[in-house]
């Protein structure tokens, strides 16, 4: 049985007036055009507009208009943002406790020769801004890779003109400053549109193998200072004490001197006094003094032997041994 198509009831499409269709289409077209005509440039960016491939203008942050439908194309360049490149290490995770790694690749960046033909392992960073978006975008392809190569070449050039001790210690700031200004010169010469803000050395070390001997030098220096300090300490301990003792000896001598002179003066005046009286009656005084003295002495002595003046020898009579035994 042939199917009767006509008999199927058709759904009633609402009648849309052609005017409305036209309006909606125009509206849609307008929205698309408007959507493509406005663009926003963030505060840290600059907008670069190419019209059919040709650079026509660059725009400041804010809301701007351009021709839609790909006639004018926008490229945003973060001119205000400070950009950073790391050499000799990579930040894995930035934060309060940033994590860093070094790999074989970063070792290649950091190991370099110094002017005294030694080897040093230096890590550094470069902070920079895109100063001129036009140059940055259109003068050099792979501008950032080139910038890295330039930085490496410049740092090695400056380090190559310095001794290893300078690079590790006193010369760090000078080398960084010199490298920064050379890098800026090179950027200007390359018309790469980059402004170098800072070049800062991070860890600068002798190679691992050599490190212990560098540390040994530090230790030796410490030892030297320690020895000198100890010697001075001993000096300072001994000398003031000796000075004090010397002072003591002097004071003692002075004391002796005073005593001696005073004693002499005392003895002298005593003698003079006695003599004055003695001179008045010498004979009797002499006797008196003699007898007084014997009077003092004789009673004290327990062992007295009185021998007749005719007896010449006293010893045969005396039993000395017994006396000593007592």
């Amino acid at each position, binding site marked *: 049985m042939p199917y009767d198509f006509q008999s199927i009831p058709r759904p009633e499409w609402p009648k849309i007036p052609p005017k409305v269709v036209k309006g909606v289409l125009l509206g849609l077209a307008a929205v698309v055009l408007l959507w493509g005509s406005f663009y926003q440039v963030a505060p840290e960016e600059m907008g670069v507009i*190419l*019209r*059919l*491939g*040709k*650079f026509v203008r660059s725009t400041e942050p804010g809301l701007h208009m351009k021709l839609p439908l790909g006639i004018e194309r926008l490229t945003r360049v973060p001119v205000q943002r400070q950009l950073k490149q790391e050499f000799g290490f990579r930040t894995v995770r930035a934060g309060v406790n940033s994590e860093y790694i070094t790999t074989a690749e970063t070792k290649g960046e950091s190991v*370099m*020769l110094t*002017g*005294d033909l030694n*080897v040093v392992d230096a890590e550094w960073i470069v902070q920079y801004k895109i100063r001129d978006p036009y140059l940055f975008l*259109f003068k*050099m*392809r*792979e501008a950032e890779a*080139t910038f890295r*190569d330039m930085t*490496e070449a410049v740092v*090695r*050039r400056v380090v190559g*003109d*310095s001794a290893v*001790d300078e690079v590790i210690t006193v010369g760090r700031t000078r080398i960084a400053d010199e490298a920064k200004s050379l890098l800026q010169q090179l950027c200007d010469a390359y*018309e790469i549109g980059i402004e170098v803000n800072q070049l800062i050395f991070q860890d600068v070390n002798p190679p691992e193998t*050599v490190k212990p*001997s*560098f540390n040994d*030098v530090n230790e*030796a220096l410490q030892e*030297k200072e*320690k*020895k*000198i300090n100890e*010697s001075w300490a001993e*000096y300072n301990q*001994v*000398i003031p004490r*000796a000075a004090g003792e*010397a002072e003591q*000896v002097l004071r003692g*001598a002075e004391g002796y*001197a005073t005593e*001696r*002179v005073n*004693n*002499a003066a005392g*003895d*002298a005046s005593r*003698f003079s006094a*006695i*003599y004055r009286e*003695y001179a008045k009656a010498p004979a009797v005084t002499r006797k008196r003094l*003699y007898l007084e003295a014997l009077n003092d002495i004789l009673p*004290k002595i*327990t062992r007295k*032997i*009185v*021998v*007749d*003046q005719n007896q010449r020898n006293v010893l045969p009579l005396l039993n000395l041994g017994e006396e000593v035994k007592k």
Partner: protein
Amino acid sequence: MNTKNTTLLIVIVGALLLGLLVILDAVYIVSETDQVIITQFGEPMGGAVTTAGLHFKTPFIQKTHFFDKRWLQWDGDPNQIPTKDKKYIWIDTYCRWRISDPLVFFQRVRDERGAHSRLDDIVDGETRNTIANYDLIEIIRSSNRDFELTEDAALLDFSEVVGKIGTGRDKLSKIILENAAKITLEFGVELKDVQVKRVNYVDEVQRKVFDRMIAERKRIASKYRSEGDGKSAEISGQKERELKRIVSEAYRKAQEIKGKADAEATKIYAQAYNLDPEFYQFLKTLETYRAALEKDTWLILSTDSEIFKYLKSAGR
């Protein structure tokens, strides 16, 4: 709808599409970063188009070939090269180049890949030739500035390790550049500069350098240690000297003071005792008897002594 109208419509639409195709193929956009050469059946037509914007060509017959207009990067592989003083080093250079004559470039090397392989040959070759003619120090240093001596380094003598340079890194780069740039012009490439990016010792040399560095540091360390010993001995010597000086000076002064006092005392005694030396002797002797004759003393007295004058008789 009649067939005539339909045919007309088809023709019109077809013509429009064809026109669009023709227009699309006749128009090309050159960006700020591009340069274009046009070929007609393979034959180059005119010079390169370098201004950015919309351009026209004969559709279908002419073909466009786009090339980059910007400075391009070439980074060579590290090369192991012996220097004139027979030190083996790895040297890594980079250079900046651009397609200065797109037509010649297109004819000779076709594209960037071709150019890269040519640059590899030329720049590496020139680097090799140049480096091999100079001592290592000429590649490392770029001036003859004197090193700022640190306390450590002052103990070392660099003169044997480091000679003065006559050429230096900058000039060597220039020499490489000049020689290479002459050749690259032949395939439409302008070379702007060649820079030595990295120079490193080959492993074997590096080991020797490390040994030398270690030896240098050992020298410094032992110098410090012996300086410490020396200084310490000096201080201790100074201490001895000072000690002796202080003690002996004190002794001298003390003796002087005592001597003066002794002299003074002697003078005083002499003045007094000179009144009657005999009486002084008498007094002093009695004093000595008092002190010398003790309890245990044996005293043997003869009856003719002064004290026993009255023992045997009342005298007179």
